[in-house]
């Protein structure tokens, strides 16, 4: 993932958490402005989106598609195994095994590619969002 998609991942995580907060509350809508993030969520009976009608931001340049995808830890875990450097994997294939309290589960490749980097040591404690592997997309 490039820096751009990192920000997107953060935004998606934030939006998910806010949606959970809204659904657990009695609020009809929720408008959160935090740093450069602004999110409006509403139930059918909620208010109008305050972000509508504001000046549209200038279009930004499309982020160049990175050929290399950084695979990061989805949560804290121990890195149990990883694919080897140079391994070719297809989409949906296991590229690492994570372990939480001695229970293992696979981490799958979202796209086909070649492992071109190993960023964390097998056997170590990995934290959320920590880089694990670098996957180069096969053209």
């Amino acid at each position: 993932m490039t820096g751009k998609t990192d920000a997107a991942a953060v935004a998606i995580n934030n939006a998910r958490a806010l949606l959970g907060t809204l659904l657990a509350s009695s609020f009809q809508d929720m408008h959160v402005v935090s740093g450069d993030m602004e999110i409006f969520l509403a139930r059918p009976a909620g208010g109008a989106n305050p972000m509508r009608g504001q000046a549209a931001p200038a279009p930004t340049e499309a982020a160049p598609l990175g050929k290399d995808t950084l695979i990061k830890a989805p949560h804290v875990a121990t890195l149990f195994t990883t694919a080897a450097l140079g391994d070719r994997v297809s989409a949906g294939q296991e590229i690492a095994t994570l372990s939480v309290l001695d229970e293992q589960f696979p981490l799958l490749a979202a796209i086909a590619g070649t492992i071109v980097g190993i960023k964390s040591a097998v056997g170590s404690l990995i934290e959320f969002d920590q880089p694990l592997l670098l996957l180069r997309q096969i053209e």
Partner: protein
Amino acid sequence: MSIKRLFVANRGEIALRIVRAAQSLGIETVLAVSAADIDSAAGRLADRTVVLGPPSAAKSYLDPRLVVHAARETGCDGLHPGYGFLSERAILPRLCADHGIAFVGPEPDVIDALGDKLRARAMAHAAGVPLVPGSDCVATAADARREGDRIGYPVLLKASAGGGGRGMVLANNGDEAEAGFHRASAEAVAAFGDGTLFMERFVPQARHVEVQLMGDGKGQVVHFGERDCSVQRRYQKLVEEAPCAAMPDHLRAQLHASAVALAASVNYRNAGTAEFLFDVARQEFYFIEVNARIQVEHPVSEMISGFDLVQEQIRIAGGAGLSVSQTQVKLSGHAIECRINAEDVARDFQPSPGRITKWQPPEGQGVRLDSHMSAGAMIPPFYDSMVGKLIVYGKDRAEAISRLAVALDSFVVEGVPTTIGLHRQIVAHPDFIENRIHTRWLEQVLLPQIGKKAA
């Protein structure tokens, strides 16, 4: 045997409080954080932080397997759950036990038993703790009148199968009990398909009182006096004080004895709080529930006892016995705590996360602030909105109130709306000063008055 490295499975002011308590005992700390809390006051003070997961609490603070895995893999031999989150989920101490980590709290079976309202009531009854007077099932209108006469009015008729207030009718006398029986029973049939009713005494103006307990897990229990938490909004406490100045000494002694007897009957281990309804008009108290954790408002008990409850929690979890006997617990003076939330009172207490731009906390004699905030600190929107607890101590309630008023006046927070202004109004109100409050006072008296003034 004592804990060498403590995992702190919480956030906000209580995480900071626990880290400080551990450090005072010479214990290392590892703090669990979500991605939203990587930069926090507790994180800067802890020896290490571990990022569990994304901001969503369900995928970070509320996942017991992730929490215990992180604790085990960072070499922690103890885990403090704080309050909220997983603190009263028996799965957490069970997982800790499976992996050789001392849990700072009660046994999981005790947490389960106390978390079940019916079992907790049965345990309280067995320990001789007074419960709200009530009836078994009532089958006819005549039964309802007879039971109402026995219990004393006003009474609530409630559906056995009920919940959420449906099938619930208030009766102020025998005639209303008879009429109410038919109405409540019909409502219960319509709502739940079961017209079975029972009755319970209704206390229109009750105080919420609670006893701070600490047990060694072997039957020894000491108390640190009671707290009065009657200033509430929608069952959320806003102001807590110790002691309950409205309670006469003979009743206070009974209250403490009841709470200690209940905790001792289950060999309660670590900190807990027994909560009661105090019927001021009748001068009686009734058991509500036990909270099997350290509570938000524990500082007021610390202020009147001069005793650090969180340090004691950590010592007991490490295998130590109680460090004080009941006769060594000396209670004196009066303490009041205000929970300061980032909420917009004018907009129905809407949580208002954001960045603190100015943070000027009060100082002075008898003033304590438990907070993780500072200028530039961020209040993430994903969790509760508490920014701190202002606690004051005085030789008596009047002195505590006057110190609290001064402290609130000099407390400046900018960047987000807070409840400081509401606390100023509470503390200045004659009902509060003269201690005429009850659990519905804020909603029935103060908030309507504020609304009128604003209109």
